[in-house]
């Protein structure tokens, strides 16, 4: 414990720490925070947090699943798989997420309602809401960015590993499952941590298509109470805390995975 605190025991760091504590105390004292209990009690803050976190978790999981195949197609697929995969990744990486989001929600979403048979089907209960479009866009975006990352990771695994696996008579799927994918994932972990933070920072955009995430809640508070800065400051602090948790999780993961890369 003492050893952990030692890096902080320098004069300028103590001064900075004091300044930071002072700034926080000033914020707590001089700014308006009386709106917090209202919005905590009516559940809006928790709803927003839940939406943000679940959008992140689901788009991360589904997106990474697609990304593995996109990376694999680009790294070793035949041209009729590699070319579309590369095109998809370039398309996603070359256009702003906001444009993609609005394209899916306003463009495709408004097309759906022109067809009566869609409006009368079971899917309409989901298609008329905003979150499926948000989730789909975020998932496709994550898949596009990570597909490129996974391509590099697959190509980075030493050829000898795959050759010896083949020499042992492993089937192609077993090679992927036992040899290729684990080593690729191991290489990609540090990058993946950063990309996860980027994905978290992409989620507030869904507020522009009326999904009630954390950012949207802060905008609601600002419009209701005319308090300008305080909700934004709290929002920034919450995002920083989530980022911190993500960084810690990935640091723990990297420590768990043996890091001796041949």
């Amino acid at each position, binding site marked *: 414990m003492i050893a952990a605190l030692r890096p902080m025991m*320098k004069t*300028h*760091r103590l001064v*900075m720490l004091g300044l930071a504590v002072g700034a926080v105390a000033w914020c707590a004292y001089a700014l308006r925070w009386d709106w917090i209990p209202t919005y905590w009690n009516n559940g809006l803050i928790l709803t927003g947090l839940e939406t943000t976190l679940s959008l992140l978790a689901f788009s991360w999981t589904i997106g990474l699943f697609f990304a593995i195949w996109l990376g694999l197609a680009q790294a070793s697929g035949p041209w009729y798989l590699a070319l579309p995969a590369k095109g998809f990744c*370039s*398309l996603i*990486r*070359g*256009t*702003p*997420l*906001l*444009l993609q989001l*609005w*394209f899916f929600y*306003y*463009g495709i979403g*408004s*097309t759906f309602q022109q067809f009566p048979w869609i409006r009368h089907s079971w899917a309409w209960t989901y298609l008329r809401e905003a979150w499926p479009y948000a989730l789909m866009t975020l998932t496709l975006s994550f898949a596009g960015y990570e597909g490129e990352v996974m391509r590099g990771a697959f190509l980075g695994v030493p050829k000898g590993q795959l050759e010896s696996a083949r020499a042992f008579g492993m089937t192609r799927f077993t090679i992927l499952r036992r040899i290729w994918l684990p080593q690729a994932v191991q290489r990609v972990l540090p990058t993946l941590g950063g990309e996860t*933070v980027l994905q*978290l*920072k*992409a*989620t*507030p*955009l869904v507020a*522009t298509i009326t999904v009630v995430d954390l*950012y949207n809640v802060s905008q609601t508070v600002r419009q209701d109470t005319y308090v*300008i*800065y305080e909700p*934004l*400051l709290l*929002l*920034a602090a919450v*995002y*920083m805390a989530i*980022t*911190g948790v993500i960084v810690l999780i990935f640091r723990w993961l990297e420590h768990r995975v043996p890091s001796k890369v041949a």
Partner: protein
Amino acid sequence: MFDAISHLFDPGQALGLLAYAPPGWGGNLLAGLGRSIEIAVGAYAVGLTIGIFGAFGKIYGGEVTRDIFGIYTTVVRAVPELVEILILYYLVPQVVNSILLSFGYDRVSLPQMPVGILVLGVVLGAYMTEVLRGSILAVPQGQIEAARAYGMPPLLLARRIIFPQMMANAIPGMANLWLNATKDTALLAVIGFNELTLTTMQGAATTKNYFVFFIAAGLMYLVISIVSGRFFARIERWARRGQPLVRGGGI
């Protein structure tokens, strides 16, 4: 041939909505594209300036400088750009005005564009600091020591030894940041900047023809990223001249 293509843009034809002159939206879209590029270039210049100072400050600066830049890069990279843009967008004019008022001047209303450029530049600067820092650290230590041993003054050392060798490592990261800058300009649409994405949305909402507009805007962004990918690949080849070949480059 050219005639047939230009007829596509006549009113009522497939691309009539994108014609250059009103009632087509082509002129507006191009103006939006121009503003997007202007913001991106400005923000990139601001970010590069901050990044150069930040990188050298983080490596060669004193303890206080290093910690300050450390806090800057950590905080800026941990908070969503949208939130930062909102905070700074309201904060910058207020700070400027309160400084002006305290010196006895009148309030000014700051023009939108420079504030937007500055805000995006500050965000970009944090990432640029890290890219440049990494590439400076990748320059072999012996090179710098040898230059110091010959008595090179720090500025000459930076210009003749560090800069040429760090460029090759820095270009890929800088290319990524340029692409991020062009895409981040779209975020300014949320606070009412009339750049490409917002103009597209306005055109699409007015004409109810979402696909034409969004695909046109997407193609414009794609052209930017492909052209600048080529451009950066060429610069990287130049920066790597004389070094062993590595694969890479380009989107």
